[in-house]
């Protein structure tokens, strides 16, 4: 009997595979596990098991002509069997008398911390490999995960995933993600969409009862997880997936055809990305620019903030890849649900209403200045634009303008190559900015951050899965506010774009164009279907759709 779990669509697609549990069982259970033979002998067996699993997948990948991916797994196999790891675990088990599971945790934790503290970004990334190896050893110990299925055709089941885990898993060729928590605009969903991996989020606690190692289908568009599907269901969704793939290649074929509505009215589709390396993906899906580069990802998962030079290299790489297409870089947006381990933890009752975005920059200006220096230095390489997050008042902008001027003066004195006349815009994500856009003199563009604007307008936490289903970002309240922003922008002759997930939904994208918001930025993989939808309508149809969106809730 098939078991169905309903969640929210995190990233589109249909995935077939075997469930793999990413969450570890509680340590209490594990310490009670009886061990045959000595603890270290058992650890040696676990190492051998993990090494064999990793090597098996590595040779599979080599056979598939993916030597780079294979090398990663082969290196992890060496790590799993590393004498340094063995010594660390032995010391903890024998000298400190702590349980094996904790010893593995502590040893890999210490090794990870050491790698993260190095001033080499590549090696800091390798910390993820050590962490992954530690997890695999712990999973082998608990027996929850058949390690041979860990990396291929896995439908990863987890309570929730950190951005680090999601990003790490992308390298392992998994089939899909299913999480109990999370929302359509959470980091897991955003990353999964960028990586083109199907994901269902917000499945609730019932997900945690799903065992590992059972066949499953992830119908991610409908937010559905099917456990132990029947052969009929497998046939049905196999056919469905083939149809979708054909449609997808048809859409990719129109990449490069001018983006206009049926009656010739132009629109621009840009990509939201979290790392410069995603530029190629954005271009492949036909993005004509980067409407949002989130820069937190350059700073997360490390022991210290990226220095100016490292940031400069990243921005320069992106501008080069985008070859004079617009690239909007959002300055650091920490605070809210995005915390950086090495920054002071603020004691805030409401972090989303607290020191985040530009407010963080004002409070801790050093990192903001380093970022501005890196941006102005990279600016000669392409069409760079700087966007300020969480702006609520004109004073926020004038402060930032002052900082940019200060940084430009410093750069002028230091004699390095830079460009000071970079367009500066704001992210319209507070109702205050939306309502009083006309007060903001001295900005060159604005981009509506519909995820946060909806959260603040509806007063509903977007990380709360129970709330987002009731208080949706396509509520007429949001569309009316967007209509207001579009009208103000038109009066001010201010370029306006939208970079929230609202743009990725074809029906909503049509309404947005109807409101006069013709520059839409979204996850790269959403671009083809939005393009197809917009090309099939006339401008008057988009206006009609916009009017409907402002009035009633169309179900």
């Amino acid at each position: 009997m098939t078991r169905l779990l309903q969640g929210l669509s995190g990233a589109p697609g249909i995935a077939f595979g075997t469930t793999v549990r990413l969450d570890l069982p509680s340590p209490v259970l594990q310490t009670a596990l009886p061990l045959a033979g000595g603890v270290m002998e058992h650890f040696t067996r676990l190492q051998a098991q993990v090494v064999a699993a990793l090597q098996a997948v590595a040779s599979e990948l080599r056979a598939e002509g993916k030597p780079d991916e294979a090398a990663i797994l082969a290196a992890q196999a060496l790590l799993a069997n590393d004498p340094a790891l063995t010594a660390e675990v032995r010391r903890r088990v024998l000298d400190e008398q702590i349980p094996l599971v904790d010893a593995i945790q502590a040893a890999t934790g210490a090794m990870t911390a050491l790698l993260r503290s190095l001033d080499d970004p590549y090696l800091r990334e390798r910390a993820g490999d050590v962490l992954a190896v530690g997890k695999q050893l712990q999973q082998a110990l608990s027996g929850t995960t058949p390690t041979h299925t860990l990396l291929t055709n896995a439908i990863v089941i987890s309570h929730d995933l950190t951005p680090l885990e999601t990003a790490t898993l992308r390298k392992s060729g998994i089939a899909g993600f299913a999480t109990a928590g999370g929302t359509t605009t959470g980091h897991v969903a955003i990353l999964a969409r960028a990586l083109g991996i199907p994901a269902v989020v917000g499945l609730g606690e019932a997900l945690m009862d799903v065992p590992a190692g059972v066949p499953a289908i992830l119908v991610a568009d409908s937010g559905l997880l099917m456990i132990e599907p029947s052969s009929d269901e497998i046939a049905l969704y196999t056919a469905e997936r083939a149809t979708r793939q054909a449609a997808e290649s048809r859409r990719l074929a129109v990449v490069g055809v001018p983006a206009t509505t049926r009656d010739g009215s132009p629109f621009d589709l840009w990509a939201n990305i979290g790392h410069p390396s995603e530029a190629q993906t954005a271009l492949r899906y036909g993005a004509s620019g980067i409407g949002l580069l989130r820069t937190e990802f350059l700073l997360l998962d490390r022991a210290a903030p990226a220095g100016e030079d490292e940031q400069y290299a990243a921005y320069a790489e992106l501008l080069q890849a985008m070859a004079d297409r617009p690239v909007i870089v959002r300055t650091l947006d920490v605070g809210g649900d995005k915390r950086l381990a090495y920054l002071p933890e603020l004691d805030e009752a409401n972090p989303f209403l607290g020191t985040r975005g530009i407010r963080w920059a004002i409070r801790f200006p050093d990192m903001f200045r380093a970022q501005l220096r890196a941006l102005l230095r990279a600016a000669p390489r392409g069409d760079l634009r700087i966007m300020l997050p969480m702006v609520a008042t004109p004073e926020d902008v004038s402060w930032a303008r002052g900082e940019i001027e200060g940084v430009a003066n410093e750069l002028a004195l230091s004699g390095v190559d830079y460009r000071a006349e970079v367009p500066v815009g704001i992210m319209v994500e507070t109702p205050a900015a939306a309502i009083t856009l006309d007060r903001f003199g001295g900005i060159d563009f604005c981009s509506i951050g519909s995820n946060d604007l909806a959260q603040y307008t509806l007063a509903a936490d977007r990380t709360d899965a129970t709330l987002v289903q009731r208080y949706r970002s396509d509520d007429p309240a949001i569309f009316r506010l967007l209509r207001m922003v579009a009208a103000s922008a038109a009066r001010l002759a201010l370029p306006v774009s939208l970079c929230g997930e609202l743009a990725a939904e074809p029906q909503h994208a049509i309404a947005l164009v109807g409101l006069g918001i013709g520059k839409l930025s979204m996850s790269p993989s959403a671009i083809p279907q939005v393009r197809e939808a917009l090309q099939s309508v006339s401008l008057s149809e988009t206006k009609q759709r916009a009017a409907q969106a402002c009035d009633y809730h169309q179900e």
Partner: protein
Amino acid sequence: MSETHELVLIVSHPNGLHLRPAALFVRTAARFHSTITVSNLSRVGSLPVDAKSMFGVMQLGVAEGHTIEVHSAGDDAAAALVAIQRLVANDFEEQA
């Protein structure tokens, strides 16, 4: 019969001793009985690590152009250094 040898090499692989080159380095070292350690002379305060440990070699943070010092002690110490020297000199091209 035990002997001790030392060798100083410059790593010219564009990725330094990163993942794949590091793995080859470790595998090469692991073929020998001798105790082999390696340190990164281009990083201040870098301590010698076990050349047979992937983690150890990784944490040296050897980038392109860095100078490493390899130390070996044991009955096949000289042969080990010859193999490592050849690997580094060939820019980590996989040996047939």
